[in-house]
């Protein structure tokens, strides 16, 4: 049994930032456990720039952004174990992991930070008719082939889903000489950042077909084409709108799912909308001393926000370890009228800081107002020129306002169009 103050599960940007912040706040024995060969998480394959503009004030690529944090970690005596897979987190916060060097290890930790990130929704999650020929893959897998293995997975590409990874791959494949025929999106709006629509599709004249899906794939050994169709308001394909599109590659960019097998096995209840654990303002889950941050908690589009959230969790873990973390009666948060979810799901009434409520909306709103209420009383409102489901938003509640709220009351956030 190894003894640590803090065990961090996952060495992506979330895990690294949480570990560093805990150290800054006086936590001594910290271990970061990462199943891949290197730290960095998904950023290692995100070679495009756009990371860190808000955090570092520079336009960095994914590996550069991760590299900054790896350097900071190297300069500390925080223990890093790569090639190490975490298998279990017991109710007394004992972490079980395995690697080739140490074999099976058990870590006795005062606090644990969950930072396992997310994975892409696979083909199985969709119902598309057709054989299992090669040439069908998730956009993230394609990204790894091209950017890490230096291998082009195809030449004529159709992308299903307008998530950011799909948009980024549309540009990447085009730059490498492939013909990206179209991006089909089931919803009437894109799930990606506007900036990515502009610089990944518009710049190259790649059409974005909204309210459109792939209904069948064709080909025996290798994909030869797909059938696309328009969908109605209930997202059902409209008969008669089918169109055959020849292509040798179909990339899926149909959403990300937080990687929460470990959390579920340890008995944590997941939020139905975020698919992540429910947390308080310091990202403490319903298990004492277990914190969560980054994509495992909610899918982020900006790594800068991942870093910010992970620092909050790292600070929370440090407070917990030092016995300074406030644990009082709470108010719960709830998204209503167009607001799909809120993180954190609860706030300690006696909290010692301002709290940002992060959320996503369920549809596109122009010139809207975000209204925060508690017990029928408005406590905050903020005007927004534009709100889209693809972009995470937040409002900040002042500590003084929170301290005044009645215990067990509900804070709601809604959009007024």
């Amino acid at each position, binding site marked *: 049994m190894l003894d640590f103050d803090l065990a961090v599960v996952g060495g992506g940007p979330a895990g690294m930032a949480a570990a560093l912040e805990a150290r800054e706040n006086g936590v001594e024995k910290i271990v970061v456990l990462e199943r891949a060969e290197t730290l960095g998480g998904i950023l290692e394959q995100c070679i*495009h720039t756009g990371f860190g*503009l808000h955090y570092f004030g520079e*336009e960095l*690529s994914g590996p550069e952004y991760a*590299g900054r944090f790896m350097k900071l970690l190297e300069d500390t005596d925080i223990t890093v174990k790569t090639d190490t897979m975490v298998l279990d987190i017991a109710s007394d916060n004992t972490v079980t992991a395995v690697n080739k060097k140490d074999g099976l290890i058990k870590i006795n930790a005062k606090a644990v930070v969950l930072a396992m990130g997310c994975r892409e929704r696979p083909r199985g999650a969709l119902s598309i008719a057709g054989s299992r020929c090669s040439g069908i893959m998730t956009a993230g897998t394609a990204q790894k082939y091209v950017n890490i293995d230096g291998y082009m997975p195809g030449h004529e590409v159709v992308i299903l889903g307008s998530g950011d990874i799909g948009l980024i791959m549309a540009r990447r494949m085009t*730059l490498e000489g492939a013909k990206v025929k179209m991006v089909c999106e089931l919803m009437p709006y894109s799930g990606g950042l506007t*900036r990515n629509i502009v610089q990944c599709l518009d*710049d190259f004249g790649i059409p974005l077909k909204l309210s459109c899906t792939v209904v069948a794939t064709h080909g025996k050994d290798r994909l030869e084409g797909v059938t696309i169709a328009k969908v109605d308001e209930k997202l059902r394909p409209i008969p008669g709108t089918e169109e055959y599109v020849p292509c040798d590659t179909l990339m899926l960019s149909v959403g990300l799912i937080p990687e929460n097998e470990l959390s579920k096995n340890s008995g944590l209840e997941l939020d139905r909308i975020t698919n992540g654990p429910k947390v308080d303002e310091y990202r403490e889950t319903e298990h004492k001393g277990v914190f969560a941050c980054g994509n495992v908690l909610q899918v982020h589009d900006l790594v800068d926000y991942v870093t910010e959230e992970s620092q909050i969790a790292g600070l929370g873990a440090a407070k917990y370890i030092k016995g300074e973390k406030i644990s009082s009666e709470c108010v719960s948060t709830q998204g209503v009228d167009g607001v799909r979810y809120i993180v954190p799901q609860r706030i300690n009434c006696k909290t010692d800081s301002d709290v940002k409520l992060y959320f996503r909306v369920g549809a596109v709103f122009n010139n809207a107002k975000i209204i925060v209420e508690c017990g029928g009383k408005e406590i905050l409102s903020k005007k927004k*020129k534009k709100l889209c489901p693809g972009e995470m938003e937040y409002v900040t509640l002042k500590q003084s306002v929170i301290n005044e709220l009645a215990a067990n009351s509900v804070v709601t956030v809604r959009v007024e169009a």
Partner: protein
Amino acid sequence: MEKRELVCVACPLGCPITVTLDDNNNVTDVTGNTCKRGDAYARTECTSPTRMLTTTVKVEGGKKACVVPVKSSVPVPKGMMMECMEAINKSSIKAPVKIGDVVIKNILDTGADIIATNNAE
């Protein structure tokens, strides 16, 4: 006078920006941006658009890596991205590579260097 609606692509926040141009296509006003970069972006986008270029370049003699990611040190003219890609795909770099190593200096006279954004042993 003309008003043009743009989305700032200088960072992932993607602020909606309105640019006012006079009859000679000179920018007279920029609104909607959250920071100075947005103002600069809107002005170049209306006169001579540029983009950051990121791709990979072949690594010779690497232990494991066969490619390493690279970026342009400054944005290149939007219309020259494909030409730059051709030049990059013709070149290669010898391992070991360090973040910041210059792969191509002043690519096609654009004023941008192509630099490595990861290490490769």
